[in-house]
């Protein structure tokens, strides 16, 4: 693929360099750069430049052109940076004088190009691409580029300022070890000489930072603080210490400065500092600064400060946070805890959905801490209050469900808990299943399913579920008017019957299975059908037999395989997968210690055949939806592997009556193409036409049946699997098509444009 693309490269370069043509759009150029990035990562820039002289040509022409488009110029800067990212590429470009004329800002930016933000951005990007090795750093330091970079820190474009900060942090990070190393032990003279430039650059950056922080102008302080935060998170410890010495003084001034919007960036800096060893060094005064920030601001800003301090782990006890959250949640539904009465009233909090949702989220996430076990009763009580409140918004209920699930996951079963579940929880859930809002019904059913699944195997829970009339509530929900709700009801019911250890009466089983079959056959929307299949699959997975299901499997396969929804088909194939797994792997264990007997395999295959599983696989293999055929192909490969492993004989035993199925034609077609020597009726051409197959079908001498092994052989499953694994847009997304597009647009004459319309 790359070689094809490389052959297109010269003409693309030509198009890009042609200032008379409109430049391609930004996205194309970005994609092109991505491709170059891939290329340079496989191969260094030097060899690319050597093999593709057109690139150098392109860079030259851009440099020399007086009318170059800013977009193209920006692109070429980025490209040059990429090509110089490896030392060899860098040296080559340096030799040819490209780098100096592109990156040393004496010549070109007077052209007015510098005014264009995309050019400044491209220049920075190019620099960043390039500054990956010492020679590039030398180049950077020696040519005084730093002044310009520092200027860009206060650029009007946010993209540029943020990029600048990244580069400055990168430079400090690269140069510091060497600069610091230089200080401590004497190195070779040549290197010391090199480093003197580096030293001056780093000093310049640091003094620039402290200067910015000491400025009166907020627009100057802000990028300074941002840079500081980045450096503190990205750079090594010695650098942090050195830097902190530089900036501590202006920071202390800034901390007491009130009434400006510097609080968030200041807190970002302090937070970054608090995560470093600086925090524990008293002379660094990080904690003192936080203190000053917390108490010198107005309410809103102190809250911001407090929030960022809280984000530092382990600084406040979980119990304290938990109690605060529970109190807040109580206030939000109008229950004032007496303990905070004196703080004042919060009428605006009552009924505030946003706070309720966030509060419940926090309550749920507290469960990751061991300490929160103490809060378990209060947590369940408040969650229940939210569920019982008629004013709870559907989204709040959803959050309450999520929180409840998390608390259930950590609590240990107790009589109190089961009393809570069967008395309080189930009664409110029953009411929610009848709620007027479908969202509430849906999330309640989902919750029941998740809860049942989470408490799988817990006999008290299962008993509560089955004795409280919940099953009949779920049954009723199956006929909900909303498809989503129906689907959730199917899932919940499925889960409820999967987990049960109670011997289910067969009539109930039959009733459910027949209801799900009706859903599968008659439902107009796909969600309930998908859910029904998932339920069948989960039932098939459990070790106990589900007699009612076994009897209906063939109907399930036929309904699912003929469904118009591809997801339903996928789920049907998953069911087939489980069935195959179960019936084929069942054999070895039947006679332990022996190789799976042929007879047993044969029986299993026959069963699969009878249930329509094999037919389903072949039919789906030729499905028009790629994921379906991919899945079917994977299953057939699995089957093939199994048969290869187990059958010692030729495996001709199981034969399929190929003509009975509509997918048979496709297989015959392939069969004939593969086996021309066997057929007299077929011409020697490689391709067999379908008319010929018709003749074949009528020919009595042609076998009506083909063995399964042969079919699996004939179908080139591996090749199919490969083709199917490529996504459908792989051609469109290739660099080649990108280049073709660029060329096409460039060469599009006016006539073509007219034609298009």
């Amino acid at each position, binding site marked *: 693929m790359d070689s094809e693309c490389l052959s297109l490269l010269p003409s693309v370069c030509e198009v890009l360099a042609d200032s008379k043509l409109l430049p391609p759009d930004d996205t194309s150029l970005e994609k092109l750069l991505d491709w170059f990035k891939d290329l340079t990562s496989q191969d260094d820039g030097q060899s690319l430049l050597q093999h593709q002289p057109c690139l150098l040509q392109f860079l030259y022409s851009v440099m020399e052109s007086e009318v170059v488009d800013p977009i193209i110029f920006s692109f070429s800067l980025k490209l040059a940076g990429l090509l110089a990212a490896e030392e060899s590429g860098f040296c080559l470009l340096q030799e040819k004088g490209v780098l100096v004329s592109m990156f040393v800002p004496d010549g070109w930016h007077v052209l007015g190009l510098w005014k264009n933000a995309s050019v400044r951005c491209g220049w920075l990007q190019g620099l960043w691409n390039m500054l990956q090795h010492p020679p590039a750093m030398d180049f950077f330091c020696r040519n005084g580029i730093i002044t310009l970079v520092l200027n860009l820190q206060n650029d009007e474009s946010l993209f540029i300022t943020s990029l600048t900060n990244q580069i400055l942090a990168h430079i400090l990070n690269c140069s510091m070890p060497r600069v610091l190393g230089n200080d401590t032990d004497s190195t070779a003279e040549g290197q010391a000489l090199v480093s003197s430039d580096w030293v001056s650059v780093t000093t310049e950056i640091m003094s620039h930072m402290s200067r910015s922080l000491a400025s009166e102008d907020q627009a100057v302080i802000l990028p300074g603080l941002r840079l500081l935060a980045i450096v503190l998170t990205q750079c090594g410890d010695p650098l942090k210490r050195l830097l902190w010495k530089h900036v501590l003084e202006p920071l202390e001034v800034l901390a007491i400065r009130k009434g400006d919007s510097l609080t968030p960036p200041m807190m970002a800096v302090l937070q970054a500092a608090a995560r470093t060893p600086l925090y524990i060094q008293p002379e660094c005064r990080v904690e003192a600064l936080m203190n000053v920030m917390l108490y010198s601001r107005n309410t809103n800003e102190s809250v911001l400060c407090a929030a960022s301090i809280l984000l530092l782990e382990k600084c406040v006890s979980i119990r304290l946070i938990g109690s605060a959250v529970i109190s807040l949640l109580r206030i939000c539904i*109008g229950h*004032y805890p*007496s303990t905070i*009465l004196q703080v004042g*009233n919060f*009428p605006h909090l*009552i*009924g505030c959905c946003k706070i309720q949702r966030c509060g419940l989220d926090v309550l749920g996430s507290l469960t990751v801490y061991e300490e929160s076990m103490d809060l378990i009763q209060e947590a369940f009580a408040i969650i229940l209050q939210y569920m019982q*409140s*008629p*004013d*709870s918004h559907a989204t709040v209920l959803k959050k309450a469900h999520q929180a409840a699930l998390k608390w259930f996951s950590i609590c240990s079963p107790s009589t109190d808990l089961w009393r809570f579940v069967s008395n309080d929880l189930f009664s409110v859930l*029953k*009411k*929610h299943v*009848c*709620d*007027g*809002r*479908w969202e509430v019904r849906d999330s309640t059913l989902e919750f029941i399913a998740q809860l049942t699944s989470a408490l799988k195997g817990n006999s008290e829970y299962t008993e509560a579920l089955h004795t409280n*009339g919940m099953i009949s*509530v779920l049954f*009723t929900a199956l*006929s*909900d*008017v*909303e498809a989503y709700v129906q689907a959730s009801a199917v899932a919940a019911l499925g889960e409820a019957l999967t987990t049960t250890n109670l011997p289910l009466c067969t009539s109930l089983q039959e009733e459910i299975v027949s209801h799900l079959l009706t859903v599968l056959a008659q439902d107009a929307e796909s969600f309930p059908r998908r859910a029904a299949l998932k339920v069948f699959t989960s039932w098939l997975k459990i070790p106990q037999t589900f007699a009612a299901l076994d009897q209906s499997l063939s109907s399930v396969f036929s309904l699912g395989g003929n469904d118009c929804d591809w997801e339903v088909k996928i789920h049907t194939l998953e069911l087939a997968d489980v069935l195959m797994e179960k019936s084929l792997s069942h054999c070895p264990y039947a006679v332990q210690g022996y190789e799976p007997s042929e007879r047993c395999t044969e029986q299993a295959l026959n069963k699969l055949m009878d249930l329509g599983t094999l037919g389903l696989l072949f039919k789906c293999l030729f499905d028009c939806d790629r994921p379906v055929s991919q899945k079917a192909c994977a299953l057939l490969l699995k089957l093939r592997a199994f048969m290869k492993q187990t059958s010692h004989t030729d495996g001709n035993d199981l034969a399929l009556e190929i003509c009975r199925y509509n997918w048979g034609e496709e297989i015959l077609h392939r069969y004939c193409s593969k086996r021309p020597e066997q057929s007299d009726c077929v011409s020697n051409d490689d391709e067999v036409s379908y008319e010929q197959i018709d003749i074949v079908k009528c020919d009595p001498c042609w076998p009506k049946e083909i063995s399964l092994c042969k079919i699996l052989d004939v179908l080139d499953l591996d090749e199919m699997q490969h083709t199917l694994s490529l996504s459908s847009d792989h051609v469109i997304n290739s660099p080649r098509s990108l280049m073709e597009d660029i060329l096409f647009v460039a060469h599009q004459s006016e006539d073509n444009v007219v034609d298009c319309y």
Partner: protein
Amino acid sequence: MKLYCLSGHPTLPCNVLKFKSTTIMLDCGLDTTSALYYLPLPLVHSPRLSKLPGWVSKDGTVNLEKELKECAGRVFVDSQPEFCLPERELLDLSTVDVILISNYHCMMALPYITEHTGFSGTVYATEPTFQIGRLLMEELVTFMERVPKAQSATCWKTKEIQRRMLPGPLKDAVDVWSWRTCYSMQEVNSALSRVQLVGYWQKVELFGAVQVTPLSSGYSLGSSNWIIQSHFEKVSYVSGSSLLTTHPQPMDQSSLKNSDVLILTGLTQIPTANPDGMLGEFCSNLAMTIRAGGNVLVPCYSSGVIYDLLECLYQFMDSANLGTTPFYFISPVANSSLEFSQIFAEWLCQNKQSKVYLPEPPFPHAELIQTNRLKHYTSIHGEFSSEFRQPCVVFTGHPSLRFGDVVHFLELWGKSSLNTIIFTEPDFSYLDALAPYQPLAMKCVYCPIDTRLNFHQVAKLLKEVQPLHVVCPEQYTQPPPAQSHRSDLMLELQPPPVAYRRCSVLGLPFRRRHERIQLLPELAKALVPSEIKPGISVATVSAVLQSKDNKHVLQVRPSSPYPSKKRKRLLEEVPELLTPKPLLSGAIPLDAFLASLHKSGVTEVKVEETAGGHILHLQAEDALIQLEEDATHIVCDTNEPLRATLRDLVLRFLHKL
């Protein structure tokens, strides 16, 4: 201006406003919660209720076996239920000129006010208020007359017995002596014959003194707030109002602006329950019961929230797959109520009004009736008993559960836990209502739906309309007793609202300062205005002020100096006509005045500055001129000619009118 408060019930108000020589009664609500102390009136003979033991005090000294019965651990009065009337002793009801009705729930005491009291005024109400009010009264009378009780219990009311001997809650009942049994249909008709219908924004003149105007209040069909205003004063009366979008026309808030006094009553009785949430709760409990094979009983008034409930259920039942469940609406006025709601299109919200032009019935219960899903009956007797099928939903009254068809359904369904009773009316405590039916197996759900303003909405409203003073029942000035910490459930205003309770007489905190007087054209023509300040001219007028029918007119004074003998007496009453003295105005500029004094030969002047102006000492003449902002004094005891000269000098600097 005074306000007499005849009812302490915040949502069933009865206040009398005395304003500019008119006496206006604002609403006359009837508090029927007193019925809760009485035994239910069963429609069908109830063995349980007829065999209740009578009450005898523990020591056996008081025996009220005939009047009081013990039922489910409580003592009830076995008699025709009685209602708590507005106070009738506080002021002479015959002096009331008009009664303004704000909604049909607030007029139920009307016959007690207009009949047998000497009342001879007019009652103003909108048409739906009048018609539905009539239905509700008719229903109440039917409920009572259908189950007559010979006995009228009075012995238990004796103060010594009631307060000292009776068990709670009967002993805590207040004003029991003012309770009365229900009025008769004849009294209802007579009371309603005094009603004059008005439309929203229609201005009604009362004796030329004040103008009253009903405004849409958004609470129920035809419900209104009232504006009572003179030329310079405006009193707003806000009764049951709602800002929610239900069936009635939305509330007119802007007309309430610039009120001197705003009387605020009829806020929601359940401030913690949000009507939307309650409606949802209602539907899900109903669905849960029906699905489990039970029946649902909804005790309700025959007009109002029931329209919204039916509309909500109309949509909900299909989506809940309960499309075939029948609804029964049983009330002596069920049919009229359902039909009336459909014909008052102009009183409905925009959405419903526009349906009429399609033409479609504005309320979907028409369709429920058409498809036989909603059936209405006058009572449980007759057709209903043969057509009735279960499970079903029954809407019926009375919400107090003491009379009406609901009593029968409680006896019928109370024993099964499959059935549910859902309370939607906020007027009665459901626990008290259910007390005589205990023990009850039936599930009970409390979903009070009160769409009237809540404290949050009212705070916003008041911020918007900015009345100078707010008058409200005392209940609104403190949090509800059960939620003493919820300071958001009370009115907090600056200045604080003026609170009233039953029998309060409030002097409303504002004084009338101006009155409009008309000037006849002849008189106006004769005026000679002179400008005293830029844009302000004054003129003196001398005329005769005639006040008649609260209108004041300035007329030209009669010129005939020679009256005939016949008119002599009349003329004598005309006050003596004097030519008015000219009025002076303006300020005296000190420097110019000194200069003119100098010119007149007064040379030795000593000027002393005082707090209010200057004192000029004319030393040679031994005189003083005191110049102040609003007065000038010349002290010159001996020399009269000099005084006159000085006076003329002063006058030269002043304007004369």
